[in-house]
């Protein structure tokens, strides 16, 4: 039994997948017939895409599921060539228990269009021995030729009743005491993402078995909003070194993601007491910085460059006022 609750309480039966009823019954039918086309799972994070895929393979192959299932991550593998090589190595042999093996490719939308073309050829090559389940957040980022080869399953963001069911069932098994109204807080904090929900719940439960709204707030509040505000103020006032030090600190202590920091930074810009033209400039810089981070640049260096722009904005604003 895993120590990580997202694993310990991962649904093991079709009936335990909450909030995706139509999809689940279609998947169940595949298992009954022991046949399925290539599938594409699209939908927001934490709605059950990997879980449903795991249930399908476990139902299809029983205890032998590991040798019939390859889990790949487009965002972790270095390039499409590695993905194809792994697929080839896995697909070369036929399954002993079934007509096909299953390859789950997570975050397929992280692949470029060219890489997707290559993937399409690979899918065709091994269609005799393998079925693909592609998982992505947005189906629009997947090229049409792939979409047309897959049965598309659209996962919905988990709604309040689904979240409630999950929380109640974990609370019962872990002996948690839920304060009235706390489920609403959990729902809001999780934003319908089940992985996030269960992590928040476990992070709270290691502090206290009594789950209260205060506790949830304490765990999830971006204590950093205050910090980020003062980082920006320091930069605007020309105290760059201090700002830089604080930035590094919150990234280290709270393991905060660079992208999240930019989002908070951007939210504060409209409320700053500086010239409006400068605000637009700074927001433009935020956009550029966020893009660079998504492309894989160094969080610290890029955020510092952003702070330097704030410092200059502060300087120009003061010059103008004079």
């Amino acid at each position: 039994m895993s120590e990580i609750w997202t694993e310990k309480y991962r649904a093991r039966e079709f009936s335990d997948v909450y909030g995706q009823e139509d999809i689940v019954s279609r998947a169940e039918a595949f298992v009954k017939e022991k046949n399925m086309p290539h599938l594409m799972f699209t939908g927001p994070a934490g709605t059950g895409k990997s879980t449903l895929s795991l249930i399908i393979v476990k139902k299809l192959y029983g205890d032998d599921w590991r040798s019939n299932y390859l889990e790949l991550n487009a965002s972790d593998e270095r390039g499409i060539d590695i993905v194809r090589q792994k697929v080839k190595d896995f697909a070369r042999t036929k399954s002993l228990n079934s007509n096909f093996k299953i390859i789950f490719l997570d975050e397929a939308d992280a692949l470029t269009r060219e890489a997707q073309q290559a993937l399409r050829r690979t899918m065709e090559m091994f269609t005799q021995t393998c079925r693909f389940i592609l998982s992505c957040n947005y189906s629009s980022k997947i090229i049409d030729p792939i979409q047309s080869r897959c049965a598309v399953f659209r996962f919905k963001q988990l709604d309040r009743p689904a979240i409630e069911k999950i929380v109640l069932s974990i609370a019962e098994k872990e002996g948690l005491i839920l304060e009235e109204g706390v489920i609403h807080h959990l729902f809001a904090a999780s934003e319908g993402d089940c992985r996030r929900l269960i992590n928040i719940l476990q992070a709270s439960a290691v502090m206290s078995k009594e789950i209260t709204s205060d506790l949830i707030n304490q765990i999830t509040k971006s204590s950093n909003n205050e910090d980020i505000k003062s980082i920006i103020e320091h930069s605007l006032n020309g105290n760059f070194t201090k700002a830089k030090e604080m930035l590094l600190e919150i990234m280290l202590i709270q393991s905060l993601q660079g992208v999240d920091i930019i989002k908070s930074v951007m939210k504060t810009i409209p409320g700053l007491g500086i010239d409006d033209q400068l605000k637009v400039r700074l927001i433009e810089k935020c956009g550029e910085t966020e893009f660079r981070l998504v492309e894989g640049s160094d969080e610290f260096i890029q955020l510092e460059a952003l702070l330097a722009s704030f410092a200059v904005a502060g300087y120009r604003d003061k010059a103008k006022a004079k």
Partner: protein
Amino acid sequence: MVFSEKYRPRKVSEVTGQGAAMQSILKIITHNTKRPGAILMHGPIGCGKNSALSAIAKEMNFEVIELNASDLRGKDEMRKTVRGAVMQRSLFNKKKMIVIDEIDSVSGREKNGLIELAYLIDQSSYPVFLIANDPYSKNIASLRKKYPLVGFKKLENQDIMNILKKICVGENIVPAETSLKKLALLAGGDARAAINDLQAMGKGIDGEISVAKRDQEIGIFNALKTIFRSNSFAVTDALNNVDMPAYETMMWIDENIPVEFDVREMENAYHYLSRADIFYKRITRHNNWHFSIYSNIFITAGICFSKRKVHDQFVSYRRITRLLKMWQSNKDLKEETAGKFGKAMHCSRRKIFREMPYLKQIYGSMSDGHRESLSEELNLNSEEENFLLEVVKK
């Protein structure tokens, strides 16, 4: 005698950090068939591929026939050399194993050679171990299809430190723990390199390491002076003699931009530093080293010409701060730790990064018993455990 030979493991139990790979090798060794076939071993330099085989041979009393693939050109040579090894019985009837190193250096055009090799392996009554640096090389695609791949992991710093410690005991060297740690860090997973460094420094290890560090510091301080103060395009050579990884160099420049420049110059300087970082990432992303030229020009000339005029007041440049050092050393740790969580939680490192604040909270606050079993479940090493527990004091 070189330490790396003198202290090569003599028993299977002495091989460090390669549990899974060792199991696969032992399986084929102890297999009782007439035609045991071959396995294709791969892994980074200095991670213990040869050591694993020689330890097995010593402990289980095998005679080792070593061949180097770069000497085996074409079908005839392959037949002549390998056939002899495969067919002849061992003197004194000892068990035999055949090791062919650098198998991926046999060029793909010499297909006949490889076909012959596969044929000979099928005939062989001794296990054959093929060692490749790059198992995915096109040259050996045919072998890859035929024989199981056994991957050796890059050694962790802790593994390398353990190896070094054993040698120090044998050689009566009593180094500071921090010196060993630095040696291990420098080696970047290559045990042979670390052992050679240790031998070269010998008993003076503590002194040597700080000297090496001092030289490096003098180098970077001089380079900083050139970058910030010169006013000619020759500044692009400033980093040529600095013996430091690129990211660390960027951190040194980063630390000193606010020391040298005023606000407006600073924005330019950070613009170029951030561009340099982008090109630096493109090197690995597109596997194109030419991008490093741009990266270098941006962090030298780009920074240099960010100033509005040459400054002449005295400035003392700063070493990188403790926090910055931590950030640097945490970067890799964060990746590795996230990778281990990702495997257990069926998701990518990127998704784990987003959950990291919660995962740290969970790990840090759970009871000791639970924490231990979680560490075991994820197979965390002590560095990764510390990373998860780390809280910087304000």
